[in-house]
């Protein structure tokens, strides 16, 4: 309050009890009708601004926030290697070899009920491509169910949750393999896919319309279905590139 009467800014701050000379302003308002009218005009304005109703969040909101966040966390205090989708999604030979090693490591460690004949390298690679293609197709179906759900009605996604839960572990394996192979673009894509699958798997069985709509928008904004199609085409193309005579030999080997 620099002069005899407080400025408009002083009065607004006085409303918030933030005025530097609050006591002096208070005393002045008690004795000055003009300033009191000015203050009341600001008061009416500010008291009319009540809190906007917040969107309702269900009881599982905190869990949903964590499910979406957790895959993006690295070691505390360190930036997570978050490669943006910007490189061609191509399954390079190096990645295919690394995926094959990871895939077969998992297979050989699992107990086999019936010992089978040894597989050739080409047969193993074909089975790997089938596995990756199958993983992408199953992921695509889960996401399609979510994207195609009615955004105006509650959505029961208990079956999609179950499917997503099974896909998360495989997705994680393929992602880690891609990272080790230096395939940043593919790893980034798989990371995005894994995050969506985790969110579905760890979320509630029923989503309210706003929750379902938000999930649909996230899938669409990230272009997940398009990316899955691109990778799936690459995988399928890898199979089709194999000459017919070699295909026959692969079939015979199996």
């Amino acid at each position: 309050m620099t002069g005899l009467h407080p400025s408009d800014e002083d009065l607004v701050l006085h409303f918030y009890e933030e005025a530097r000379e609050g006591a002096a302003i208070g005393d002045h308002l008690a004795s000055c009708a003009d300033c009191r009218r000015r203050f009341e005009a600001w008061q009416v304005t500010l008291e009319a601004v009540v809190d906007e109703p917040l969107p309702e969040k269900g009881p599982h909101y905190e869990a949903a926030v964590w499910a979406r966040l957790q895959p993006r966390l690295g070691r505390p205090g360190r930036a997570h290697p978050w490669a943006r989708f910007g490189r061609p999604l191509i399954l390079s030979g190096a990645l295919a070899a690394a995926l094959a090693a990871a895939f077969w490591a998992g297979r050989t460690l699992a107990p086999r009920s019936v010992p089978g004949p040894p597989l050739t390298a080409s047969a193993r690679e074909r089975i790997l491509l089938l596995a990756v293609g199958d993983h992408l197709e199953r992921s695509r179906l889960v996401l399609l169910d979510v994207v195609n759900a009615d955004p105006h009605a509650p959505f029961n996604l208990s079956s999609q949750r179950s499917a997503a839960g099974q896909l998360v572990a495989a997705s994680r394996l393929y992602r880690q393999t891609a990272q080790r192979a230096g395939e940043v673009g593919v790893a980034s894509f798989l990371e995005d896919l894994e995050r969506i699958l985790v969110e579905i798997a760890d979320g509630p069985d029923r989503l309210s319309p706003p929750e379902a709509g938000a999930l649909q928008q996230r899938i669409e904004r990230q272009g997940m279905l398009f990316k899955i199609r691109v990778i799936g085409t690459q995988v399928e193309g890898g199979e089709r590139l194999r000459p017919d005579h070699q295909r026959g030999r692969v079939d015979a080997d199996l």
Partner: protein
Amino acid sequence: MDEDDDVVARVRAGDQEGFRILVERHSRSVFRLAYRMTRNELDAEDVVQESFLRAYRRLEQFEARANFGSWLYRITANCALDLLRSRRRRERDEQPSLGGAEGEGKDPLAPDPAPDRLAMSAEVRRRVTAAMARMSTKERSAFVLRHFEGMSIAEIGRALQLDEGATKQSIFRAVRKLRVVLAPAAGVQP
């Protein structure tokens, strides 16, 4: 129940799951602030994610004696500011028009119902939304933090990286814009 400081120490020691406790404790308050600043649910959810991610990455910078909630609040305010700046055009497109459609020719400053119903009317809320759309990101942020979140001028200044004078000016300019829009309904001079 462990205090936030104890949980932060555990996370720093490598217990990532500990961060889940902090997320679960503060998710709703972070969302509340994010929503009040962005006034868009999807944007607010993105701000929630980005805020916790930034907090996690900057945990080494958090001072043990400080209040984790306040620190997180500051991060949230800045994340919301970043989003508002980068999505300004989308925010303008998504602002609800008064009375349903500006194309219908409704005057946003038309006389309102009786002043004694002022605080609770939907019309007032629409006017407030319109006024906030006219504020700069700085004004809007400062006003939300003061009026809805009850933060002090000093806290707002730290969150928005403004000095005291600039913070007060931002709040005052925001309130002045509100008054212009609400004046006909409130029966006061604009």
